[in-house]
């Protein structure tokens, strides 16, 4: 458990520091459950990851995707605009022991936009 904690902690710090959008996939039996996108990633107590989709036992985390973009506007009548944060994110990731890869994916933020293509960094457990 301590290993999982030390593994994911740098990512939590990165996500919160850079206000990244993330989603977490967890193991549920033999299947994988993909959570919603959000900006919460923290370890509230030993053994748990608090994610946009709720609490997930650390040992159940399969992968975490970090969007390389952030969002400007999109609510309150403001036009939506994507902000490229890829370089910032990758620079931080390179200083960690995390296993990651760049992937093409889709990104949804309920009520704001649906299934937009986005490049993500996927970190596997």
């Amino acid at each position: 458990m301590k290993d999982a904690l030390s593994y994911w902690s740098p990512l939590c710090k990165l996500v919160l520091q850079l206000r990244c959008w993330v989603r977490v996939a967890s193991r549920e039996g033999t299947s994988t459950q993909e959570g919603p996108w959000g900006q919460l990633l923290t370890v509230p107590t030993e053994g748990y990851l608090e994610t946009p989709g709720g609490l997930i036992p650390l040992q159940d985390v399969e992968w975490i995707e970090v969007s390389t973009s952030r969002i400007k506007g999109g609510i309150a009548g403001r036009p939506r605009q994507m902000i490229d944060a890829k370089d910032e994110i990758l620079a931080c990731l390179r200083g960690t022991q995390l296993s990651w890869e760049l992937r093409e994916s889709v990104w949804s933020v309920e009520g704001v936009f649906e299934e937009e293509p986005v490049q993500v960094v996927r970190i596997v457990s």
Partner: protein
Amino acid sequence: MSYGITKVIGEAQYGEDKWDRLNDSNQTSSIDRNATFREDWGKTMLRSFGSGLAGGAASVAVRGGVRQNYSAVAMDALGGTIGNSIAAEMAKPSTSPYALTDSSSSVGLNANTRSGTGLSFSAGGVSAFDGRLERGLAAQAANTQIENDIDAVNEIAGEMEASGKYTALTRQEIKQLVAAGKPGLTESMHYEGGLDFQRDRVERGAILGANPLNGSSSGSGFVMNQTLPFSEQYDGRRVRIGEGGEYSNGLSALQTAGGVVEMLGGGLWNTGVSAIAGLSGIVVAPFTDMETATATIHDVQNRFGYELQSDGAKDLADRFANLSIVQKYGQSKAYLGDKGFEIGGPMLGALGYSAPDAVLMLLGPKATNVTVKGAIDGTRYLGRTLGPTLDMMGQRFLVRNGYALNAVPEGGSFGVRESGAGSATRRLATVGDKQFPTADDAFAEALVRHDIDPSTVEITTMYGKNQNLLGPQGQPWEIIRGLNSDGELIQFEHHANGHFFSDTNEFELPHYHGPNGEHLTY
């Protein structure tokens, strides 16, 4: 009070446009002003009664700036909750020097309780900013209003004294003052409070905002079942309070009558504080020793006890100790010291029911791990059963807003749990965590920490599948989105049902998340 803070509070209370019009005499007709004040008069009085009487701490909080003083704001919110709780529950003369009845109101102080924290959103819908920040600031707004009221009274008193007519402030004179645009004063104040202050002093009483004093109030939310002792025997002669000419204390009638109001309110306030202080001592006691518990009581008393402020009240206390209102105020002060360890009394159950936020705020995490047996078991108070009770593990717990007074968590939230519930402990705090008296306060702090413009906030109610986010009856949690000062979209979660961590047998109270993942609990 600085203009900026007043403006913030005013806008929160009235809305930006309305506030601007209120403060622009060129754009505001007297009709508009009157209508606004009529509409808000009852609220103002109720708020003033509790929050205004909180005295120095509240004013300091406002003067210091809202953003920079959230701890002080929390104190005020607690004060509001206490006042609300006491107003609602302390209706028995034997438990209080003053008798109250509650005609029920959701205005003003009530806004600090958890019952109005936006759970009315439709499932999955996106709501506009639902006013929590305004409610969180409502207690502060009361200070604005009461200071305006006091300014108005003082100004009128000055006018009257200068003209040598201060003992005969007639309705016509008030009209003239209104016509002259005196701040905080409207003609409608004469009767809007439903006053019967004393037939020949209606106008004066109305100006002072003394409508709760003789039981004929309408619209202020509660009334005091004690007739203001407008006449008192003193030194063998009958003294009429409120008539400066006969009651020759060197102060104007207005100042004197204001002192009466303050003294009555102060007495009530202190009685309420004593109950909270005693409660805190009770709950701290099992963890510490008698000395520490007593110190806790004194600390609460010192922080929240009310000291007379106005010249009128001080004068009454100094020079007319035989007056019944002075004696009763003194009794309330004494009351602060002798109700510390009334274990098992109905007051504990009443306060736990009415003001769980106050209890939790005062006691912090310890409150969640203490069982006060007997105090809330089947409690009936004034013929009323206090809330739904929850039987488990051989004990009965009082449940309020989804959690028990001693906050026993269920898998995912706070309710019944099959096993191990009673032994659960609260999660150790992490950097940045902070406890707040109400959800509104926590929400306001979250917005500040995330640097979110409140006017851009959208709240989505979530039901989802994660059992660790839902309440025991499937109560939802929320996602809050808003734009920060850079225009960037920020999202944070409101885990309104707290969490239970089964692996570690720990729980966390309901909370909003801060930008560093911290928990802003309430």
